[in-house]
Every structure is written in structure tokens, then in C-alpha cells.
């Protein structure tokens, strides 16, 4: 048993990573909850967000946190346009088609970016990249602490949006009762696209919060998307709170796995959890709700 001096920083680190996983999973679970589709393009779209933050920084000197004002709205617009322009049209309302459409989108996006950006791994330099903050005697990189706070603020904003605004209520209404939604005058195509846009905007936020302590490459989304799927299953498909808690759990499991089993085996714990949840609690920790 390693002593607390090692355990605490590891857990805290896991929580900060987990909050970002949660953010990625939040978008995925929102899209699943409303559109009942699994968005296989989620990782590829996160990658686009990361490149956007990267180039805004490298070309125009925009700080990644300033990009929070730019990239999430752009990602929202991209998500909206993808849903309305491609996914609905190509899917013809059939779930299995839509699945293939999102899978196809991810392949196209990734190959295009491989072609344009090569498979180089790129990082940005910020004045605070190596600053640390002391919490409970542990030293955590400042960008990870900011990411943790940012993820929760975003989740909070999303919660207010979903529970307090007409748009949020319409999204939840449409998730369960399409005919009723039409009869109160909800434009279903628009609200579906808004939901997809919001899910993708979450990726934009995640990209801004992630890049200062991470990197970008054409394949960067893979790791995240697998973990996000695990979180969504763990938390319960379509559940917001489930995604948040699931994200934190997975982050900590990964960090502790790395501590005990070594960096390269750290993620094994995640997939053990994934399998166990599927076997013993297929509806996830918090069941199915939106």
C-alpha cells in the first residue's frame, strides 16, 4: 500500500482527468438521450476542436481559455449543420443508417486530417503550462485544475439550460414524446439539431480546457471516445449526473491503475469496469433518464 503522499496526488490527478472525460461523455449522453443514436464521430469532432484551439493559438496567438468564447460556438454550429445537413438526410430516420453515417463521418474526418496535418503530435506553449497549484499537499498542474473547474461549470450551465429554459424542456420532451412535441409546435428537426449542436459544443469546451495540458494529433479522439462510451454505459445511457459521476470514477480508476500497474496498464481497470457493468448492471449506475 503506497502512502498517502503518493495516493492523494494520484486521486486528485484522476479527478481532474475524469472531469474532462465527463465533459466528453456529457455530449455523447445528451445526443444519445435525445436522438437515440450513438455518435461514433464524437472522437473525430473532439479532434477538430483541438485543432481549432491549436491553430487559433499558433496562428493568431489566441489563448486557449480565450478560445472558450470562439471554439464552442463554432463547434455548436458545426454540430447543428452536421445533424441537419448530413445525418438526418443520409440516415432517412433509420437508427442503423445513422450509426453508419456517424461512423463514416469519423473516418472521413480522420483521414482528411491525417492528410492535411500528417500524424504529427502537436502541443502548444502557454505561460502557465508548467505552473502548479498545491491542493491537500499535492502539486497539480494549473491547467488541470482549471479544466476540472471548467468542466463542472459547463455541466452546471448545461443543467440550467436543460431544466430552466424552454429549449431544454423541448429537448427533453422530444426525447420521449415526438408527437406531443409536434402538437405544441416544437420544430422537431430544429430541436434535434440543437441537441446535437450542444453535444458537440461540449467537445469544443473540452478542447479548450484540454489542450494546455495535452496534445493534438489526428488520432487523439480514439482514446477519449472509448472512455466516453464506457462512462456513458457506466452512468446510464442518457443520464447527465451519471456521466459526471461516471467520468470522475473512470478518471480515478485510471490514475490508480497507473499507480499500481504502471502507466501502460493503467487503462485496464476501465475496461474491467466496463465489462462488469455490462454484466451486472446493464442500465448503468443511474438507469435511463434524460
Amino acid at each position: 500500500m503506497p502512502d498517502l503522499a503518493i495516493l492523494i496526488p494520484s486521486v486528485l490527478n484522476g479527478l481532474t482527468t475524469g472531469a474532462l472525460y465527463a465533459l466528453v461523455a456529457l455530449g455523447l449522453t445528451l445526443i444519445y438521450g435525445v436522438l437515440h443514436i450513438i455518435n461514433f464521430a464524437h472522437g473525430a469532432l473532439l479532434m477538430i476542436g483541438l485543432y481549432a484551439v491549436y491553430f487559433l493559438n499558433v496562428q493568431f496567438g489566441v489563448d486557449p481559455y480565450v478560445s472558450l468564447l470562439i471554439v464552442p460556438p463554432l463547434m455548436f454550429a458545426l454540430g447543428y449543420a452536421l445533424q441537419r445537413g448530413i445525418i438526418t438526410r443520409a440516415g432517412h430516420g433509420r437508427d442503423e443508417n445513422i450509426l453508419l453515417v456517424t461512423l463514416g463521418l469519423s473516418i472521413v474526418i480522420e483521414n482528411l486530417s491525417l492528410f492535411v496535418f500528417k500524424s504529427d503530435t502537436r502541443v502548444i506553449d502557454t505561460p502557465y503550462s508548467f505552473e502548479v497549484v498545491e491542493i491537500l499537499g499535492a502539486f497539480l498542474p494549473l491547467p488541470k485544475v482549471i479544466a476540472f473547474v471548467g468542466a463542472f461549470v459547463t455541466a452546471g450551465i448545461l443543467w440550467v439550460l436543460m431544466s430552466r429554459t424552454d429549449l431544454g424542456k423541448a429537448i427533453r420532451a422530444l426525447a420521449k414524446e415526438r408527437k406531443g412535441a409536434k402538437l405544441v409546435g416544437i420544430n422537431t428537426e430544429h430541436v434535434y439539431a440543437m441537441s446535437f449542436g450542444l453535444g458537440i459544443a461540449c467537445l469544443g469546451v473540452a478542447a479548450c480546457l484540454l489542450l494546455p495540458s495535452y496534445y493534438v494529433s489526428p488520432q487523439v479522439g480514439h482514446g477519449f471516445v472509448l472512455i466516453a462510451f464506457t462512462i456513458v454505459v457506466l452512468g446510464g445511457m442518457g443520464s447527465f449526473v451519471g456521466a459526471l459521476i461516471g467520468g470522475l470514477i473512470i478518471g480515478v480508476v485510471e490514475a490508480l491503475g497507473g499507480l499500481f500497474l504502471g502507466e501502460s496498464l493503467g487503462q485496464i481497470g476501465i475496461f474491467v469496469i466496463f465489462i462488469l457493468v455490462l454484466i451486472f448492471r446493464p442500465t448503468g449506475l443511474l438507469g435511463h433518464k434524460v
Partner: protein
Amino acid sequence: MLEVTSLRSGYGAVEVLRGIDLDIEAGEIVALLGSNGVGKTTFSSVLSGLIRPWSGTIRFKGEEIQGLSEQAIVDRGLIHVPEGRHVFPNLSVRENLELGSYRRGRANRARNLDHVVDIFPRLKERFAQKAGTLSGGEQQMLAIGRGMMAEPELLILDEPSIGLSPLLVEEMFDLIQRLNSDGLTILLVEQNVLQSMEIAARAFVMENGEIRLSGVASVLMDDPELQRSYLGLA
């Protein structure tokens, strides 16, 4: 207020409405009667834009509305309370009512909310409860209340009494009459012939996608054909 002429529609290649003519004057309750499967719900759904008409015209407040989107029809104040309620099960009673004014009546939402719970005190007691956990009767009230939130000028009620206990059916018809005496125009789609005829000014009887009989309710009640086919009287 509403004038439908030669309306045809259906599903796929199957024609269900074979040329419907029907009119509603402002302030009336008009009953649309007919047994199972004759096309009453299809007709209601064409009026509210859920189903596209094939041909014919629908004039609402003097303006042709056939083929408009559901939203455009809600905007004009033609509100459809569907058969089977279709409330939002995962939303609270309050949220259901609020969404009733998603498109129309939003400015007066708070006032209309008070008005609706005045009409349905039972909903007030269950404001925070999820609509999916309400009883069938309560869900029907909620569906009507949600419709009222949009400040309807014409309210279509598709089988509001279905699945209710006799006592509640009585209450429901009283309520519909009360809404009407407050000035609301209502198209009442029903199988409950006797009770509908009591509160309706005029009635249309549908058979196999066509209007078979129509007229002033009290006169129609004495029609031998209606008595034979719908009331089981000789």
C-alpha cells in the same frame, strides 16, 4: 371559423378520408362521431398538420391552412389534443403545461397557468410530479390543460372521455361545456354519442371516410338512421 371541403388523405397508398366536408362556426361545440376506424383521428391529424392532406381545402379564420407545418397551424390558434394524451412523461406537470405555450401564448404563460389550474385543481396538487406517473384521467386533464396554454381559438379534443370512469366522463363533458361557455370553439371527436349530442350544437357522423349524416344535434338525435346504427334503437 373552420371550413373543410372535399378533404382527402390517407397513409401510403391507402385512402382513409374520401372527401370530407365539415364546417364549424365560432363559439360552437361540433361533435364528430363515428365508430372505430372510420377516420376521425386521421381527420384531426390532417387539421393539425401531423398528416398531409392529398387534396381539398381547409380554411381556418378565412385562410387556407392545408399543408402548413404543425408549427404554423399552432401559431394560428388551432390546437389539437390528441387521442391517447401524448403528454411528456419525463417532464413534470408544470413543465408540460409550460411547453403548451412553447409557441403560442408565451407572453401570458403565468396568467394562463393560473387559469388552467383553476379549471383543473387536481393538476395543481401534482405540479411537481412527473406526467408519466399520473393516472389516465389526470393525464387527460393535463393534455387538455397543455392545449389550453396555447390560447386556442379552435380546440380539437380527440376522444377525451376514453378510458375514464363513468363519473369522470360526466365531469369531463361538464368541463368541455364550461370551456365552451367561456367562448372556446371546440371540435369534439367522440364515440360517446349520447353525451356528446347533449353538449354539441351540431354533429357530423362519419362512416368509412365520409360524412354520412350531419345537422343540428337535437334534430339529428331523432334521425332513424342514427338511432339504428349508433344507439342500437330500432
